[in-house]
C-alpha cells in the first residue's frame, strides 16, 4: 500500500467523539455496542487503578507512582485494536496496561510496591517488562516485530512512549530500524505535551511529532488522544497495515498531562494551572461517557455497576498485594544468570548469618 508522505504540519487531528454541541459524534465502523462497552470497562478499570494508586501512595502502601490520569483513552483504545498474540511494550506510563490482558491488579501494584511479585513474565501476557529508561524499549519492539516477520508469524507489536522520548537516540534508532525492516510495529507516542517540567516546545522544533515519521519513510498519523474511538480506529488501521506487510506506523496521540509527572513531582512550579483545569474539564473518560450516553448505550446503572466492579478489583488487588509474603533475600541472587556462579551461594549464606545474627 503506497502511502503519501505529508508535508510538515499538515497532519489533521483525527476525532470521532463530538462535543454534544457544534461538533457531531461520529462512529467507528465495525464497533458494536458490546465493543463500546468493553472499551468503557477498560477505561474505568484503568482510571480506578490510577486514582486508587495515588491514594495508596499517600497511605504509604505503594511507592513512587507515575500517574496516568487522562491517558486511559490512549491506552485502552490502542490496546483494543490488538489481538492477544500481539506484543505490547509499555513505558512506566502504561504500567497497568497488562490489566487489559488479564494481568492481576495485585501484580501491577506489587511492581510499584517494590515487591518481586510485580515482575511478571512477559510471555504470560505478551506484555514486555515496564521500561523505565526513556525510549530504550523502542528498538526491542522493532526487533520483536521484525523477528516475528522473519519467522513468518503474523503478530505485530506496539511500543508506547512519550513526547519527550522522541528526543532520545534509542527512539530514533528503533523507528528507523522498523522502517528499514518494514517491521509490523506501531510506534505509539503519548504526546501529553510535557516531559516532567519540559514543555513540548522545548523538546522539538518540529511542528508536530507525526512529522517525524516522514524521516523514517513511514506513515504518521495524528489523533486526539482524549478520544478513545479515534485512537482505536487509528491503531486498527496501523495494525491492518502491519499485518498486510506494509511496515510500521507512527501514531501521535495528542493529549495533556493534567496530573503531576509522578507522585514525587510538584508541577505548580512550571505548569499553567488554568490550562490544567481546562484540560481536566475535557478529560477522556468523561468525554467517552457523555458520548455513550448520547448514543443511548450507557445507562447510569451500568456506569455505576462498571465503576463498582473496578473499585472491587482494586480493593481485592491491594489486599492480595499486601498479602504477598515478604520477599526473601535469596531473591537477590536469583535470575541474574541461568546458572548462578558458585560465589552466590556463599554470599547468601554469609548474608543470612548476619541477618539472623
Amino acid at each position, binding site marked *: 500500500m503506497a502511502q503519501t508522505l505529508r508535508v510538515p504540519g499538515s497532519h489533521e487531528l483525527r476525532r470521532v467523539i463530538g462535543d454534544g454541541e457544534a461538533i457531531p459524534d461520529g462512529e467507528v465502523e465495525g464497533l458494536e455496542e458490546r465493543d463500546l462497552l468493553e472499551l468503557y470497562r477498560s477505561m474505568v478499570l484503568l482510571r480506578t487503578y490510577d486514582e486508587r494508586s495515588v491514594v495508596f501512595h499517600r497511605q504509604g502502601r505503594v511507592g513512587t507512582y507515575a500517574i496516568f490520569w487522562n491517558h486511559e483513552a490512549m491506552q485502552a483504545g490502542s490496546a483494543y485494536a490488538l489481538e492477544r498474540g500481539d506484543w505490547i511494550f509499555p513505558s512506566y506510563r502504561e504500567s497497568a496496561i497488562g490489566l487489559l490482558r488479564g494481568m492481576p491488579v495485585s501484580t501491577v501494584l506489587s511492581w510499584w510496591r517494590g515487591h518481586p511479585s510485580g515482575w511478571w513474565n512477559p510471555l504470560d501476557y505478551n506484555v514486555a517488562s515496564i521500561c523505565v529508561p526513556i525510549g530504550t524499549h523502542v528498538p526491542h519492539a522493532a526487533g520483536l516485530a521484525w523477528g516475528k516477520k522473519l519467522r513468518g508469524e503474523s503478530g505485530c507489536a506496539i511500543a508506547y512512549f512519550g513526547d519527550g522520548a522522541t528526543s*532520545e537516540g534509542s527512539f530514533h534508532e528503533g523507528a528507523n530500524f522498523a522502517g528499514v525492516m518494514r517491521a509490523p510495529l506501531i510506534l505509539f507516542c503519548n504526546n501529553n505535551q510535557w516531559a516532567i517540567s519540559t514543555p513540548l516546545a522545548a523538546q522539538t522544533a518540529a511542528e508536530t511529532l507525526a512529522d517525524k515519521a516522514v524521516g523514517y519513510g513511514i506513515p504518521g498519523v495524528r489523533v486526539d488522544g482524549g478520544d478513545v474511538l479515534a485512537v482505536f480506529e487509528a491503531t486498527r488501521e496501523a495494525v491492518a497495515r502491519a499485518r498486510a506487510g506494509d511496515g510500521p506506523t507512527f501514531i501521535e496521540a495528542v493529549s495533556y498531562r493534567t496530573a503531576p509527572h509522578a507522585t514525587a513531582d510538584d508541577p505548580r512550579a512550571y505548569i499553567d494551572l488554568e490550562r490544567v483545569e481546562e484540560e481536566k474539564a475535557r478529560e477522556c473518560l468523561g468525554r467517552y461517557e457523555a458520548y455513550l450516553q448520547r448514543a443511548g448505550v450507557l445507562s447510569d446503572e451500568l456506569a455505576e455497576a462498571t465503576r463498582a466492579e473496578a473499585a472491587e478489583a482494586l480493593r481485592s488487588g491491594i489486599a492480595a498485594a499486601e498479602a504477598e509474603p515478604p520477599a526473601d*533475600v535469596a531473591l537477590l541472587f536469583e535470575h541474574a544468570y541461568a546458572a548462578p556462579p558458585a560465589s552466590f551461594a556463599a554470599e547468601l549464606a554469609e548474608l543470612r548469618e548476619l541477618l539472623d545474627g
Partner: protein
Amino acid sequence: MAELTLVEAINDAFHTELGRDESVLVMGEDVGRAGGVFRATAGLRDKFGADRCVDTPLAEAGILGAAVGLCMAGWRPVCEMQYDAFSYPCLDQLITHVGRYRWRTRGGMGFPLVVRMPYGGGVRAPELHDDSPEAYYAHTPGVKVAIPSTPADAKGLLAAAIRDPDPVIVLEPKLHYRTMRGEVPAGEHVVPLGEARLAREGDDATIVAYGSMVPVAERAAEALEGEASIEVLDIRTLKPLDEGALLASAGKTGRVVIVQEAPRTAGYGAELAAILAEKAMLDLRAPVIRVTGYDVPYPYWQIEDAYMPSVERVVAAVRKTLEF
C-alpha cells in the same frame, strides 16, 4: 558558614561558580523551569537567565555531545544527568570523545566540562534509580571522578570540578541529598581534586569508603568502639586518587576494609585493593577485604537493604581483619 543539606550545598556551589565565571553554564533535563528534580539547580534560571541554565531535550548523548561542542565554543558546561542509570546513553560520547579529545588534539583543545548526577540506592525507588556507576567512569581514560560524602565537600568538589581544565564526573549520594546537613563555608569554597579526607582517626584498622558508604563506615567504626580503634578514610576523588593518604593509613593500621555500594566484580574497590597489593604489601597484617554490593542487578526495593553494604557487614569484615 551556614548549615545546609547536601543538595543545598550543591545549589550554593552553582550560585557561586556561575556568578564568578560567565562562561559556566548548566544544562540538562528539567534543570531550568523546575530547578532540577532534586532542586540542585533551583533559582539559577531566574538569576542567570535561560541561556545559562538550560532545559535540554530528553537526550543524554545529545547533552554530553553538545557539551563537547560548547567547550569548543568557549563555554564550561555543567551537565546534569537526572539519575545514575539514565547517564548510560551518554557513555558513548564520554568514552569515544570526552575522554579522548584533548589527547586527539595533542593538547590543543581543552574540555573543561562537568557531568554530575545523583547516584546510589536506598531510596525506595522504581527500577534503575539506584545504580552506582562510578567504575564505568573511573575506567575511562581522560576523565576525573569525584564523589562527595558531606555537604561541604559536595560544594567544594563541584567547584573544583567546574574550575578544572579537564572533564570531571561528579556522583552525588542522593540518599543523603536532604537527610544530611552540615556546615558549609559561604562564598568561594574549593576542595582540590585528588585529596582524601581522614573522616576519623584510628590505629587498628582502616575502612576506606566514598560517597554514601562513608556514613556506613563511620557507624561501623562507632559500633566497634571499645573493641578496636578504627580509622575511616573518605577518598573523595576516585581519579586522581590520593594514593599517599591511602598508603599512609594502611601503613599506620596494617588492616584495610574497602566499602563500595556498586557490584563487586571490577568495581572501584578492586582498584584500591590492587594498589595496596602493589605498594603496601609489607605494611599489611591481614588480607584486604572488600564489602560491596553483589554481582546482580540492583534489586526490587523491598529487599534493597539486604543488597546495600550494611554496618553489620562492615563490622564483620573489620573483625575478620582484626582476628586474622
